[in-house]
């Protein structure tokens, strides 16, 4: 007995039906009979309306416009077989009755009586029918009102929902774009390292990237003619930091020279303090002017620094670019950024693994179907420039350090052109 229990030996249909109904209610909810549905449909309009949902006085106005219907009093008459011969005077009635045979001898009044009697009945029936029709029409008006009202409410609700959905779509699309850019930046950093290790330092031509960076970065700084070459304001004490910040750049490159071949500069060869130093440097840049200092240091050292040193600078710039993209000043973003940096560094360490990862990267890139990655090999560098300005950075820097905004904006385009095909894909570029 899978569905219900009958506890007695003798079957009780009423009990079984009750058990079946209970089970149906549990399984499918309330199962309305046709009679119940009709009763629900017969409920008056005011019972349907939830007062909290009605925000206008439409119902009151509708009721004012539609006063309760009262059928008009149409004139009618009663006509029976003795109506023609009635009179309030008894003698006259007696005379008429007496002369009735004579009257019937002259003509037959019965058809006339019948016709008038039927007409009287017809009048009454028609009046009653008209009253019924009118009341039915008014009931239909109530129904139409209810329908229109519900339509208006539902349309409004739908409109609001559509607006909300539009906003959500915009938000999601912006987040998607942001994530794509971050992933692209991460990949390009890794790709650069991998390509770099394939080439010997001597064979690698001096990157042309710093030049545009040198050209672009200082330009905003020196374009205003009234701007002094130096920054005397106390808030611009940070620009003095470039010297302090720039100095770690050189050591950062130095270990790479002495590093084991195959090791990427700035990764396993660097000491444990270098990472924190780099973090401090980035913080200093965020604090003001450090990027300019870096740019200046890089620019000034471009001709002097060896290729490896230049690469380490570029790697730092890559990380800075990532930093700009996801840094919102919160400790979490800092940590995630560091995690990203570590991943980039680790990715660029293992050369053998890089080669193996190349094939995996190809597959995953196809899966991810990122248009910029596909187009990267054939595209010149300026193509990557437009997405670089991080939208989250602008409002943060503009009010406080307008003079240092250009370096932040211009820094990412200064990245060297990566070797796009050698990007190792570890499957988790997103630091978050």
């Amino acid at each position, binding site marked *: 007995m*899978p*569905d219900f229990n009958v506890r007695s030996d*003798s079957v009780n249909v009423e009990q079984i039906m009750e058990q079946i109904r209970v089970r149906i209610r549990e399984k499918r909810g309330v*199962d309305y*009979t046709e009679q119940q549905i009709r009763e629900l449909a017969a409920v008056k309009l005011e019972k349907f309306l939830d007062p909290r949902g009605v925000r206008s006085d439409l119902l009151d106005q509708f009721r004012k416009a539609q006063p309760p219907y009262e059928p008009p009093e149409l004139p009618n008459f009663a006509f029976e*077989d003795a109506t023609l011969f009635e009179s309030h005077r008894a003698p006259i009635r007696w005379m008429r009755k007496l002369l009735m045979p004579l009257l019937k001898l002259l003509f037959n009044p019965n058809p006339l009586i019948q016709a008038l009697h039927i007409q009287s009945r017809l009048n009454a*029936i028609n009046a009653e029918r008209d009253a019924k029709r009118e009341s039915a029409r008014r009931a239909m008006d109530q129904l139409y009102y209810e329908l229109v009202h519900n339509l208006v409410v539902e349309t409004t609700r739908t409109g609001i929902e559509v607006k909300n959905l539009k906003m959500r779509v915009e938000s999601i699309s912006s987040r998607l774009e942001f994530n794509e850019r971050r992933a692209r930046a991460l990949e390009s950093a890794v790709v650069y390292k991998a390509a770099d290790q394939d080439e010997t330092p001597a064979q690698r031509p001096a990157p042309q990237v710093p030049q545009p960076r040198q050209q672009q970065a200082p330009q905003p700084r020196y374009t205003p003619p009234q701007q002094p070459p130096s920054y005397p304001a106390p808030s611009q004490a940070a620009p003095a930091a470039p010297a302090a910040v720039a100095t770690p750049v050189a050591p950062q490159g130095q270990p790479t020279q002495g590093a084991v071949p195959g090791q990427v500069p700035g990764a396993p060869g660097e000491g444990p303090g270098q990472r924190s130093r780099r973090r401090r440097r980035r913080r200093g840049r965020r604090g003001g002017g450090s990027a300019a200092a870096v740019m200046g240091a890089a620019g000034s050292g471009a001709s002097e620094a060896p290729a490896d040193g230049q690469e380490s600078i570029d790697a730092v710039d890559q990380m800075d670019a990532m930093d700009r993209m996801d840094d919102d000043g919160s400790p979490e973003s800092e940590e995630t950024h560091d995690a990203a940096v570590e991943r980039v560094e680790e990715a660029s360490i293992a050369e053998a693994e890089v080669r193996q990862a190349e094939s995996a990267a190809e597959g995953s890139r196809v899966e991810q179907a990122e248009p910029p990655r596909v187009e990267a090999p054939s595209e010149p560098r300026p193509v990557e420039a437009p997405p670089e300005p991080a939208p989250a950075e602008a409002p943060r820097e503009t009010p406080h350090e307008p003079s240092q905004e250009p370096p932040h904006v211009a820094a990412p385009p200064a990245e060297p052109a990566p070797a796009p095909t050698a990007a190792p894909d570890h499957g988790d570029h997103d630091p978050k």
Partner: protein
Amino acid sequence: MKIAVVVQRYGQAVNGGAELHARYVAEHLARHGQVEVLTTCATDYVTWRNELLAGVEQVNGVAVRRFKVKHERDPLVFGKRSDRVFEQLHSLGDELDWLDAEGPTSPALVDYINTHASDYDYFLFFSYRYYHAYYGARAAGARAILVPTAERDETIGLSIFQPLFRSVRAIMYNSPEERALIQAVSGNETVPGVVVGVGSDVPNNPQAGRFRQKYNIRGPFAVYVGRIDQNKGCKELFEFFQGYLRDPSGKLSLILIGNTLLPIPEHKRIRHLGFLDDTDKFDAMAAAEALIMPSYYESLSMVALEAWALGRPVLANGKCDVLKGQCLRSNAGLFYETLGEFIGTLEAIEQNRWLAGSLGRNGRQYFRDNYDWPVIERKYLEMFERLKKDGTPPAADPLPGWFDRRRQDLPAAQDVLAKLPKGPVWRRG
């Protein structure tokens, strides 16, 4: 004792419920007295066309006297008059016109009863709604016994039949629900009456395997037997059964037996076998897990009784008071009103063998106690004896006069019907 059975159609090929009922009763009463059937020459209940010869013939050993029908039914006129009397304020004349349009209008039959009433002890009039019962009962006077076969439809609300229910000598009801309905509409509590119903000649050993082999049917199935018509609830049955088919736990198929007026849904688990003879019909019932009776209007479902006689449970439409009352009184069937109940009850019968078996056993016992032929015959004979002792026949209401027939003061029949009590009569029964 000479009994006249008066019915609108009669013959072995006539399969209507009331007509079959009349034939069974006539054939079984013929064992206890002389029985003659008075009927028309019509076999089609839609047109009442004269298709058989007038005169006397023998059908299964019973004398049948046929009379011509004066005119065939005009469906348009009948429809208009039905709308008038069922839905509008009308007069007694309108109702008489409706009765004339409905047919089978056979003044010859009424004249015969009028002139030969004294030749018979009793006249059993079947189906109150037809011309022969209304005018024939008046002609038979104190010898008229009515087997109304009334259903809960608008016809019961017509005013012309209320005097008929009060003026006949006795009424043989089919069910307690029918009796309650007629008493409520006419106030004829003083008229002697008994709930009788009808029996059925069910074979002792139906062959379920023979049916399955003959029609290549495998697996469990539920069966419907009868005319496949919207008025019989078959459209709703199809909708509900298709809902049941969507439930993966259900394994039953639906086998339909009878002539169809509806398109059958195309599904591999719904099969229509057409009209079958009694042997195949009983074999099919014996092979079925249950009989489904989806009809909204029944005065007595003979098919349901036959299924119970074979020990099969019945799943009935709960909107029909009579079927619901029968299920409750017998504890031999379940009933449904909604799709959920249909699926739930069908699954209960299908999946619970103990329940299905218990329902079937109860049904067999219910049939033996109430609808076996010896019981039916005894009830008729007891009524005849009772009437013989009661010498005071009820006074018949006079026919309405000219003005009475034209007074438009009768309510619509559907309004009268709406005021009548509803529901099964089973606690009192």
